[in-house]
């Protein structure tokens, strides 16, 4: 089975995010970019299928800050081929519609059975990639996927519906799946393996010109206004612990 894993970079949520000068995007100059955690789950699930002996994996990503690191790491983990799509502004906010158009334009020339991507990314203002990409390609899709296996010309998919309930369906291939979780936590690639990949493998670059806006006009981006918010407990760990202990006792929930 030919699996394409579409990966992407995203501002690291651990960092403090600030708004840019015109107030319509985050300030991208000083943030660290990391790969989207759900794309990592998608890659892991693809690698598990390869371990089971039935998958050939291509990772593809749009040019974005530090994307080479993500692609080489994927190669070090066992992906067979890495492709970087260029021809757009790699520094800006690439909205879902454009991302899908660029990926679709490349996928239309490549051969694949399944495209896996993360169920969501934290800046998906204009919708999640899987459904948009599938519609552009005219193929089947499913989101919030927690497992799949191939059955001849179809894929049997498990989607989480909430509260632990799972929907099982069968989709004729090709299909695009938005992965929520892999069967195991993403594997680790050592620095040595990543270096080795950098020295022995290459990232294929393909220039694409395509776009397809889907989103509205962003008027303003801002951190949420404190709607009351939490009363912050100040002081040392011991002082804060004492305040919390009082709160717990005040609810009559513990004696000591």
């Amino acid at each position, binding site marked *: 089975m030919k699996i394409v894993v579409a990966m992407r970079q995203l501002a690291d949520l651990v960092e403090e995010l600030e708004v840019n000068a015109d107030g319509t995007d985050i300030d991208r100059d000083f943030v660290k970019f990391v790969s989207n955690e759900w794309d990592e789950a998608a890659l892991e699930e693809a690698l598990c299928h390869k371990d089971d002996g039935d998958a050939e994996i291509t990772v593809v990503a749009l040019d974005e800050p530090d994307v080479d690191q993500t692609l080489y790491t994927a190669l070090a983990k066992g992906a067979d081929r890495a492709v970087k799509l260029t021809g757009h502004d790699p520094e800006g906010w690439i909205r879902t519609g454009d991302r899908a158009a660029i990926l679709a334009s490349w996928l239309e020339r490549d051969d694949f059975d399944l495209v896996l991507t993360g169920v969501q990314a934290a800046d998906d203002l*204009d*919708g999640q990639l899987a459904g948009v990409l599938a519609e552009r390609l005219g193929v089947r899709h*499913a989101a919030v996927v927690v497992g799949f296996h191939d059955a001849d010309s179809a894929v049997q998919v498990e989607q989480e519906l909430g509260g632990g309930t799972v929907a099982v369906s*069968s989709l004729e291939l090709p299909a695009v799946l938005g992965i929520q979780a892999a069967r195991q936590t993403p594997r680790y690639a050592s620095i040595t393996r990543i270096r080795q990949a950098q020295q022995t493998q290459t990232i294929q670059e393909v220039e694409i010109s395509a776009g397809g806006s889907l989103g509205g006009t962003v008027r303003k981006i801002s951190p949420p206004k404190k709607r009351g918010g939490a009363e912050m407990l100040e002081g040392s760990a011991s002082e804060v612990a004492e305040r919390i202990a009082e709160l717990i006792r005040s609810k009559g929930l513990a004696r000591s």
Partner: protein
Amino acid sequence: MAISVLVLSERIAGEHPEATFELLGKGSKLAKQLGGELAVAVAGTDYPVQELGGADVILELAGLEAGAYAAPIWEAGVAAAIAASSPRVVLMSTGTVGLDLGGSLATRFGGQLASYVIDLDVDGEEILATAQLYGGKMLAEVALDSFICFATVIPGSFPADDGRSTGSPRVERIEVGEKPKAVAMAIREPETGGVDITAAPMLVSVGRGIGSSDNLELVQELADALKVPLSASRPVIDSGWLPKPHQVGKSGKKVKPSIYLSFGISGAPEHLEGMRNAEMIIACNTDPGAPIFEVAHFGTTVDLFDLVPELTERFGG
């Protein structure tokens, strides 16, 4: 009168989800502003009809049998409903069905879409959406001006009571001509048993900030000292550090304890969906900008590794 707002009930089996009523409540206000009717699309023909009195019209998607689900089949059904009713605004939730269909339907109809929406308004010719970005760390105001606009709304954004009213909507049957290459096979309910975190008066809840499964012992000791169960955010469950029945959130359990004590949880919308109604939320997170502090009543940025042992000690652990 023309239909101006279409709400999708994401009911696959059983009751209509709470989100349906939240959307009906908001949808009826939007429909008034737009000067049209409110329609609700439902799968199948066997559904609790009297509960949908908040809508003017029910669009029955024939052929979408309740009790099973496949994205392409639902997509074909909802597309037929949209084509038949030509609404200005289509509302879904950010549940699995909305994540499945929002992007694909917007693409199919050439409309604009806003996701993770928490508020909606009409501004002249435009639909204004307020949406959460970056796990709730930013809010975006986005103006949609396409002839058909889509929004996927975070559950809990609008009061459900506004959408629960007794009316007698007329029913229209939508035939779905398209035959997608997919089969809806089965719905699997979660295994029961294990801990019931929904019944506990207090929860000690732990997130990815705990760092590793070895560190879990630390919070387990606090939970034991307080004689309450340990609950967790999704990454802790996905990493296999705690079993699934311990998960709080959209794809876990909805909890409402008297006290929800969280350590190392950022407060992503999918987590908040499961615990925002707790009576008292006390959050520990070293990042002062963590969205959990938006819903918490009390917060601290003290390191959990310093705070938890101090607390355990106070409760005789």
